[in-house]
Every structure is written in structure tokens, then in C-alpha cells.
């Protein structure tokens, strides 16, 4: 019997990565659309820089009036496309960010699937496979033929779709190159530390007093939604949520305070109550959780 490595994902699109210190970092796997967009950006960068380069060369050729200008241009494109598409990805992914500019723009990076370090041969293997996954389908779609050739091209195009669609049909959205190299592409967004909401306008908030019954109206899930609403700072949404909460907890305090102030105060109080109950081992999932 084969034993599977203990890498069961916690949920769809997430993957656990336990550091040597024993903390699970919970990586989010890059989505198909994001990765496709990253690839498009990279190709645009490649083609764009090639175009700029050949324009410069054209200027030089025109200026010096050499006869082998068009020939040199052909060499530039043939070599440039080949070297570009094979080394651009490898060099960038071997760097400290382990991501091409396209991947960085989409907040992605390459990681070793086993949680270890990403090595040069992994990066090379996953990029050498791109040749069959992207270039082969492209050649099939671009190819034209007649009779038997046309049928063969059509069959080839269908067959190569397997490569394109492959990442859709496995748990970690890995493409063939990722499988062969033992890598995966994960989200690595840079998040900024936002101010703690339980702190702001604390002086004002102190004037509020909520009864335990009023604070028991909601659970953790609602607390997080409330946090999102306050951070988004959309006036209409805040007004709607504030009036919803006021009626739910039968608020009978002062009614002339701003929605934002009220929500902040309620958030701080609710978080305090839920957190102190959590310290005693009672994690209240959401408002229906009344065990």
C-alpha cells in the first residue's frame, strides 16, 4: 500500500506548509486565471522588449546603410524568442523573489512543494516543460495544412489542450512542469499592517456600555464581516450595517452618534468578549453557534 504524504489541504485552494518550527503557514495556491494573466504579462514584456530592441537595430541599420540588415533582424527574432522564453523565466525564478515580473504583478511566487528550498534544477525543469505546455499548443493552433495534414493538426491541437487544461484538474493547480519539478505556485501578497480597530477612537468608545446579552448576538464570522465593513469605510454599507445591528441588539443608548463611531465601539466590545471567551476555550464560530 502506498502511503500519501500528509499534505491534505485544509480547504479548496489552500495548502498547508509546516515550517521546521512547527507552524503551519497556510499558503494560498495561485488561481488559474492569475497564473494565466501572469504568463500573458511575461509574454508581453518579452515581445515588447524584443520589438524595442529590433527597432533600435533597424535605426542603426538605416543609419549605417548595411546590406545584411534584414538578415540580422531575422537572427535577432529567432534567437531572441528562443533565448528569451527559455532564460527569462529561469533567471527571474531563481532570484530572491522566485517570480517573474508577471508573477510578481499578480502576487505569485514559485515554491518547492515539499516545503524545502527551491533549487535551480527545479526551476529549470518546470520551465523546460513550458515548451510542450505552451509552445507546442501554439504551434498546433498556428499550423495550417490540407487533407490528412489538416486532420493531424486538428488532432494535435485537441491533444495539446490536455496540457493547457491540466492545471484545472488537480488539487494544487499545478501544471505538468510543476509536477515534474516538484514545485507549486502560491500567492505571496505583501500585506500592510493596518491599524488596530479596537484602538481607534477609544476615548469615544469608552462612553458606550453594551450588556452581555447585546454582545452575545454575534460570533466570530460576523465580527470579521464587521471588520471588513469598517475598513472598507463605505458610508452606505456602514449605515446599513449599523441600523441592522441597532435593531438586532435593541440598542437603547444615544441615537445621535455617527455610524462609524457606533460600529467601532461595538466591534471593540464584541471582540473583547469573543476573545476573552476564546481564552477559556470557547470559540464561537458564528451567531448560530450557541452551544
Amino acid at each position, binding site marked *: 500500500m502506498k502511503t500519501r504524504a500528509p499534505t491534505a489541504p485544509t480547504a479548496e485552494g489552500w495548502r498547508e506548509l509546516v515550517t521546521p518550527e512547527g507552524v503551519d503557514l497556510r499558503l494560498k495556491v495561485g488561481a488559474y486565471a492569475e497564473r494565466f494573466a501572469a504568463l500573458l504579462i511575461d509574454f508581453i514584456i518579452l515581445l515588447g522588449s524584443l520589438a524595442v530592441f529590433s527597432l533600435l537595430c533597424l535605426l542603426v541599420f538605416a543609419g549605417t546603410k548595411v546590406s545584411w540588415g534584414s538578415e540580422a533582424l531575422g537572427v535577432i527574432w529567432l534567437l531572441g524568442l528562443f533565448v528569451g522564453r527559455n532564460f527569462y523565466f529561469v533567471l527571474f525564478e531563481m532570484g530572491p523573489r522566485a517570480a517573474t515580473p508577471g508573477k510578481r504583478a499578480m502576487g505569485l511566487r514559485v515554491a518547492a512543494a515539499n516545503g524545502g528550498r527551491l533549487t535551480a534544477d527545479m526551476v529549470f525543469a518546470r520551465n523546460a516543460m513550458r515548451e510542450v505546455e505552451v509552445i507546442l499548443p501554439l504551434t498546433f493552433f498556428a499550423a495550417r495544412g490540407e487533407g490528412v495534414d489538416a486532420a493531424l493538426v486538428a488532432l494535435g491541437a485537441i491533444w495539446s489542450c490536455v496540457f493547457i487544461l491540466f492545471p484545472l484538474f488537480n488539487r494544487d493547480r499545478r501544471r505538468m512542469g510543476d*509536477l515534474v519539478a516538484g514545485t507549486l505556485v502560491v500567492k505571496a501578497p505583501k500585506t500592510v499592517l493596518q491599524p488596530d480597530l479596537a484602538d481607534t477612537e477609544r476615548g469615544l468608545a469608552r462612553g458606550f456600555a453594551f450588556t452581555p446579552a447585546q454582545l452575545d448576538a454575534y460570533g466570530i464570522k460576523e465580527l470579521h464581516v464587521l471588520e471588513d465593513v469598517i475598513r472598507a469605510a463605505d458610508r452606505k454599507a456602514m449605515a446599513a450595517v449599523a441600523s441592522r445591528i441597532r435593531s438586532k441588539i435593541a440598542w437603547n443608548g444615544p441615537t445621535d452618534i455617527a455610524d462609524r463611531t457606533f460600529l467601532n465601539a461595538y466591534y471593540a466590545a464584541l471582540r473583547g468578549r469573543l476573545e476573552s471567551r476564546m481564552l477559556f476555550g470557547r470559540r464561537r464560530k458564528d451567531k448560530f453557534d450557541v452551544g
Partner: protein
Amino acid sequence: MAELHLKSWRFRAEREADWRRLEALLAKAEAGGASKLRRDELLEMPVLYRQALSSLSVARSISLDQSLTLYLESLCTRAYFIVYGARTRLPERLAQFFARDWPAAVRSLWRETLVSFVLSTVAAVVAYVLVRRDPDWFHSFVEPGLASGRDPTATTASLRDTLYHQGAASDGLSVFATFLFTHNAQIALFAFALGFLLCLPTAALLVMNGGMFGAFLALFVMRGLGVEAGGWLMIHGTTELFAIVLAGAAGFSIGWSVCFPGERTRLDAAAEAGRRAATAMLGVVVMLLVAGLLEGFGRQLIQNDAARYAIATGMLLAWLAYFYWPRKSPA
């Protein structure tokens, strides 16, 4: 109430400075690699990283501030990749690759190399015999784009001209040479990358490539240009064909481990073989570059058959010695 603040608020207030410090170090390291950090910063990093990790576990159990846990997760992930990331620098890595990794990878593929060599040779011999018997076979083995006029309809004189470079008569030759290089490199990459489809496409590519070689040779031998053509092909061919054989071997090793993974899961087996084969493939790209240089410059500059053969044999011996010469295994 003496405690005006939540526990989680105080928890955050006490540690925030350390997190910010780690974030600053990370930004620096990510921008230019770990070498950008000063010595004391380098020593500080793992300490801050462990602090952040422990903050993360504490935050998960005592804080309900969503943005805080998200921030710590992202911070720890970034630090993790830096702390446990690849640390060798490029020059060291390159030296290690040429001194040890590449020959070792090639040696470990010797069985597959033998198989792909035999396949190519058999295909070449078959093509040679077939074309000798009926020149029309030539077109089945060689794509017209690659032949560029060298086919059975050409005159012996024009065939001879293609072997010895005449300055004026070679318009578009450098484009053609570049095209050949990218074509061969692509064949090699395909042979590697398609290997995981149970070896079959790799075998087909090797057979096609060998067949093309045999057909070309047969064409020139029929016109009494065998020796000359041998020199023309082999000056870079020993390097290039060796590279393609190795690429095929790399593909085979992946396909083989997918078919027969042994004790491991198919995925693990493929990943392991893939990494080993990738090292060999990196080397194959280097070999193809060498072959391209030999083809582009060596062949144009050296017009003497004996010299061409000497270089061909020398290159082959050099590669064989480099890969298979017994050496001490690293301690």
C-alpha cells in the same frame, strides 16, 4: 476596570516594532538578495523570523483581528522563503554544476543514454539503406525547410558547394544557421519534456532525428561526397547529436519513472527523476551552444576535411572523458 485595552491589542502593541523591523529587512533582502544585508542584519533576521512565527501562533489563538493574522501570515511566509531559500550564490552554484552536478547527472543516466543512442543509430542506418536503394525516400525523412536545396534533385556541384563555404553564395546563411540552432534546441527540449508521456514521443523524436541524419549522409555518399559530408556534419555533429541523445535519455528517465515508480508514488517518482534529468538538460543546452558555435564559426573558418575530422573526434573524446572519466565521489 484597570485594563483599558484588550489583551490582543496589548499583544500587538508590544511586538509591532519587531514586525516592522523584520518587514524592512525583508524588503531589503528581496530587492537584492541576502548579500545586500549587513552582517548584524543577517544575524538579526532568523531571530526576528522566529519571533514573528511565534507571534503568529499566539495571534491565531488569542486574537480575532483578521487583518493582524493575515499580515503575520504574509510576513512569516516572506521571511520563511528568505530564511530557508536558496543561499548559494551564482558563481559557486555554477562552479559546482560544472565540477560535479552535470557529469554526475549524465552518468546516472547511462542506461537511458545507451537506449537513445541505439535508437538513433538504428534509425540512421535504416534511413541510410532506404535512401541508398530509392532516393525518393529522402523526402520522407527530411523536412524541405531543413534541407534548403540539399535534396536528390540538386546537382553534385551544388551539393559540394554547400559543404565548402563560398562567401558570396551564402545569402541568408546566418539566418539559416540560427534557425537550425533553435530547431535543434527545440527538438532537445521536446525530447526531454515529452518524456513523461511514457517515453513514446521521445523515442519518435530520436528516430526522426536519426533518420534525417542517415538520409543526408546517404544522399552525399551516393554522389561520392561521403567523406567530405562526414567532416561537414561531424565537426559540430558529435557535440550536437550527443546533446540530443542525452536529451532523449533525460526524457526516457522521466517516462520510465512514471511507468515504474517502484515504492514511491508516481508523482514523487516523476518529480525526483525530473530534477535529476533537468540538471542533465541544463548541460545539454550548454552543449548545444557549443555545437552552435562550432557550426557557425568552426565550419566556416575550417575548410579542410582532416582538420574537421580532428575537431570532431577531439570534441567527442573530450565530452566522453568529461562525463565518464572515473572520479572521486565528493565526501
